C-alpha cells in the first residue's frame, strides 16, 4: 500500500511537470495575441459624430485644469488610464459648457499628457482631483479637432440604445492594449483557480473534521490552506504586473476583484496564524476548523466580485460566463490545459504536504514517548 502511494506520487509529479511545461509552451508560442482593437479615432468618430458619449475609466494622473474663460467653456484635460497603449494615449479633452449640462469629448492624440478629473463633480468644477478616481461622464462627440492619425486602442465603441455610445472597460470587450502581457493570464487565472480550489478543500476538510473528529481531515484542511496561500500569492502578484501594462497602474483600490482577493489572502494568513497560536493539538484542529469554514465566505466574494454589478465595481476581465469578449479557440485550449495543469499540481502538492503533516505528527508522537520514558 505504501509502495503504491509512492508510485502514485511519482506519476503525479511527472504528469504535473509535463502539463506545466506544456502550458508554458502553449502560452508563449501557441496562444495568439489578443485583439488589440486598434481603430483610428477618425474612423470611430465619423460613425458616431454627434452622438452622445459616455466615457468610463479611471484617472491615472492629474494634469491640469483651465478655469474661468469668460467667453468660452471651461476646459478640463485628463487622461483615462484605460486608454493607454504604448505611448499612444487617447486623451479626452473635455469641454464643459457653462450653460449646458453636457460635456464635449474630443479625443486627440497627445503623447505625454495625462490629467485628472473628479467624476462626481458634475457641472460645477470646484472640487478635488483624485488620482485613481473612477470617471464616468457624458459628452457629445465632435470630430473637428481629431488629429488625423490618432488611434483609439483597447476600446471598442458599441452603440447602445439610441444615440448613446459607451466606452467600456478593456476586459469587458475582450480587447487588450498590452497584448504580450496578456500571456500572464495563462498562469494568473489558473493560480487563482487553484487557490479557490485549495480553500474549498480546506472548507470540506474542516467540516469533515468537525463531523468525524478524524485528524486526517484536519491535516488535509491545513495543508490545503497553506498551498492555497502559495497560489493566492502568485495570483495577486502576477496580476499587478499585468495591470501595470494594461491599466497603467499596478493596483486599484477601487477594483473589487483586486481588493476582495487581497482580503481572501489576509483571511487565510489569519487562519495559519490562528493555528500557530494554539498549542494543544485537538483544540487547534477544532477551533481552526471553525475558522476554516468561516473564512471560506471570502472565496465566493472574491470569485463573484467581477460579476456582481453594480454594488461591486470591477474592471477586472471576466473569463467564465461572459457574454462578450470570449477567448479564441487556441487561447481557450491553452487556458483549459493550464487549469488542468494547476489542478494536478495542486493535488500533487497536497498529497506531498499531507505526507509531511503525517510525518510531523509521527515525530511529535515519538517525542512525547521519549519524554514519557525519561
Amino acid at each position, binding site marked *: 500500500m505504501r509502495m503504491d502511494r509512492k508510485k502514485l506520487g511519482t506519476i503525479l509529479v511527472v504528469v504535473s511537470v509535463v502539463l506545466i511545461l506544456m502550458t508554458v509552451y502553449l502560452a508563449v508560442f501557441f496562444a495568439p495575441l489578443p485583439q488589440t482593437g486598434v481603430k483610428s479615432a477618425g474612423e470611430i468618430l465619423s460613425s458616431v459624430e454627434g452622438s452622445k458619449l459616455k466615457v468610463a475609466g479611471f484617472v491615472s494622473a492629474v494634469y491640469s485644469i483651465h478655469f474661468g474663460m469668460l467667453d468660452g467653456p471651461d476646459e478640463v484635460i485628463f487622461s483615462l488610464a484605460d486608454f493607454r497603449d504604448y505611448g499612444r494615449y487617447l486623451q479626452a479633452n473635455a469641454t464643459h459648457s457653462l450653460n449646458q449640462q453636457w460635456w464635449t469629448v474630443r479625443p486627440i492624440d497627445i503623447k505625454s499628457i495625462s490629467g485628472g478629473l473628479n467624476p462626481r463633480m458634475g457641472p460645477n468644477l470646484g472640487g478635488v482631483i483624485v488620482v485613481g478616481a473612477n470617471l464616468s461622464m457624458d459628452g457629445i462627440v465632435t470630430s473637428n479637432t481629431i488629429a488625423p492619425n490618432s488611434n483609439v486602442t483597447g476600446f471598442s465603441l458599441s452603440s447602445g440604445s439610441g444615440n448613446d455610445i459607451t466606452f467600456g472597460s478593456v476586459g469587458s470587450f475582450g480587447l487588450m492594449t498590452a497584448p504580450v*502581457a496578456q500571456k500572464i493570464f495563462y498562469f494568473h487565472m489558473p493560480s487563482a483557480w487553484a487557490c479557490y480550489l485549495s480553500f474549498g478543500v480546506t472548507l470540506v476538510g474542516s467540516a469533515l473534521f468537525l463531523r468525524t473528529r478524524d485528524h486526517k481531515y484536519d491535516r488535509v484542511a491545513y495543508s490545503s490552506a497553506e498551498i492555497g496561500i502559495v497560489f493566492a*500569492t*502568485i495570483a495577486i502578484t502576477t496580476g499587478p504586473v499585468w495591470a501595470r501594462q494594461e491599466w497603467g497602474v499596478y493596483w486599484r483600490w477601487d477594483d473589487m476583484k483586486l481588493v476582495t482577493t487581497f482580503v481572501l489572502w489576509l483571511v487565510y494568513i489569519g487562519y495559519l496564524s490562528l493555528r500557530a497560536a494554539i498549542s494543544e493539538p485537538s483544540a487547534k484542529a477544532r477551533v481552526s476548523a471553525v475558522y476554516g469554514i468561516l473564512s471560506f465566505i471570502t472565496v465566493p466574494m472574491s470569485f463573484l466580485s467581477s460579476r456582481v454589478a453594480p454594488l461591486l465595481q470591477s474592471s477586472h476581465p471576466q473569463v467564465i460566463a461572459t457574454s462578450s469578449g470570449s477567448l479564441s479557440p487556441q487561447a481557450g485550449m491553452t487556458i483549459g490545459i493550464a487549469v488542468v495543469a494547476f489542478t494536478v499540481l495542486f493535488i500533487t502538492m497536497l498529497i506531498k504536504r499531507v505526507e509531511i503533516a503525517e510525518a510531523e505528527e509521527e515525530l511529535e508522537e515519538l517525542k512525547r514517548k521519549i519524554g514519557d520514558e525519561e
Partner: protein
Amino acid sequence: MMSDSWTALYVAYSIVWLGLFSFLGYMYLRQRRIDKDIKMLKEEVSKHGK
C-alpha cells in the same frame, strides 16, 4: 521598470516559478529535517531499550 510588455511577461513568469519552486523547496527541506529527526529518535529509542 517594466517598460514593455515582454519584460512584464518575464517578471510575471519568474514570479510563478519562484513561488512554486520555493514552496516545493520548503516542503523538501521540511521533509528531510523531519525524516532525519524521526530516524534519530528511533535510534535513540532502540538504544535506550537495550
